[in-house]
């Protein structure tokens, strides 16, 4: 069921405490700042957040972490020069971290959206990030079993939506948007523009509307 809503507050209103929330973006590109701010305002807590990073500076995901609303981060690259809020919480033992190689993170999200129960990959074989995981030698290479990452909600940013919820993105801001849209039970999208049904060429659509539940236009 697709809904077009007027405000980011309405868009995130149903997010419950303890939810697993995927948040799109790589660095600031594709990060849905307005939706994250609304998630902050709506009060949901005890969240597990899936994102490539663990927040930058004093905005978006970093503030959600600072306010203690994130119980666990699943990400590939938490440590950055300006990830001070995550660093402080982590050193204080107040946030759990599941560190995942970036390609495994992307593929585990993709697998969830595609109904795949898991997969073997050479990435991480023989390293500390494979400790405790099932391994096999396949095609002569050591490989590690990785499981899908599902989510209750995805918050993503796209460039334009049409009346059917089909999405197109802009440049490298696409990053995790299409795979998170498919992996979450409920996908909320902030867009820069909405065009009528038929207003996007079907040949260029990146995310078909079947994956999308709520759309909100932000200025």
């Amino acid at each position, binding site marked *: 069921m697709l809904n077009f809503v007027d405000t980011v507050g309405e868009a995130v209103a149903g997010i419950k405490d303890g939810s697993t929330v995927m948040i799109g973006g790589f660095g600031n590109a594709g990060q849905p700042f307005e939706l994250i701010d609304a998630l902050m305002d709506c009060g949901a807590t005890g969240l597990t957040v899936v994102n490539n990073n663990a927040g930058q500076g004093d905005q978006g995901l970093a503030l959600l972490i600072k306010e203690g609303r994130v119980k666990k981060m699943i990400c590939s690259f938490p440590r950055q020069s300006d990830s001070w809020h995550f660093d402080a919480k982590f050193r204080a033992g107040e946030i759990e971290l599941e560190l995942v*190689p970036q390609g495994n993170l992307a593929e585990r*999200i993709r697998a969830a959206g595609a109904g795949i129960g898991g997969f073997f990959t050479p*990435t991480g074989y023989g390293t500390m990030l494979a400790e405790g995981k099932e391994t096999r030698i396949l095609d002569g290479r050591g490989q590690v079993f990785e499981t899908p990452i599902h989510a209750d909600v995805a918050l993503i940013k796209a460039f334009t939506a049409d009346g059917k919820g089909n999405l197109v993105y802009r440049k490298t801001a696409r990053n995790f948007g299409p795979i998170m849209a498919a992996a979450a039970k409920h996908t909320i999208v902030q867009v820069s523009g909405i065009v009528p049904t038929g207003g996007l060429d079907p040949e260029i659509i990146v995310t078909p509307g079947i994956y999308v539940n709520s759309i909100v236009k932000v200025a």
Partner: protein
Amino acid sequence: MSVQSNDQTASPAGIRTSEKPLGRDDLARLVARDIKPGSFVNLGIGQPTLVSNYLEPEQDITLHTENGMLGMGPEATGDQIDGDLINAGKIPVTELPGASYFHHADSFAIMRGGHLDICVLGAFQVSATGDLANWHTGAPDAIPAVGGAMDLATGAKDVFVMMTLLTREGISKLVETCSYPLTGIGCVTRVYTDRAVFLTGPDGVEVRETFGCTLEELQDMVPVPLRAASAAGS
């Protein structure tokens, strides 16, 4: 200073191709020259990024950035800066004619599926058999962050490492066995350092050329057995 090309026959006597150790830019120039025309290449964050400054248009190299683009151009300046167009180091970049964008799973499939010809990475340590350690010092208070390093190390057809041969304390980063946590096993094929170019593989380490030292002097710095590379396959 002159940096010789890779395809030159390197006899043991003529293995020293520079009178001095190479600086970062000379090393980047050497790596750039060694990349075969038409290659698809990923340059890691830091020193490897310098390689892009020395790629010639006639080499027709296509650069991949793991956040979702092929055909990445130089760093953006002034009006070119667009927050939606960044590289893996989150630096604003430009797109070249023929560029393409794709989502993260596709971008890592390009890497993990063996489609990239070369990736160039920095390293803390490389072992004699090509094990790579470049993501984590293992220090108890360090916050680990891996990013795409493990995918690049295991996915690209060739993995080139660029690093200084010695730490600030004068200890070789080319080692028998890595003491830092591993990024990948047996994945590194070449190591470009300020003192020499090493070819690594299951049979140990060959030296293609040295800079500012003889093979014997190099051997004194490095705790793994070295031999001069045969001209073929270097």
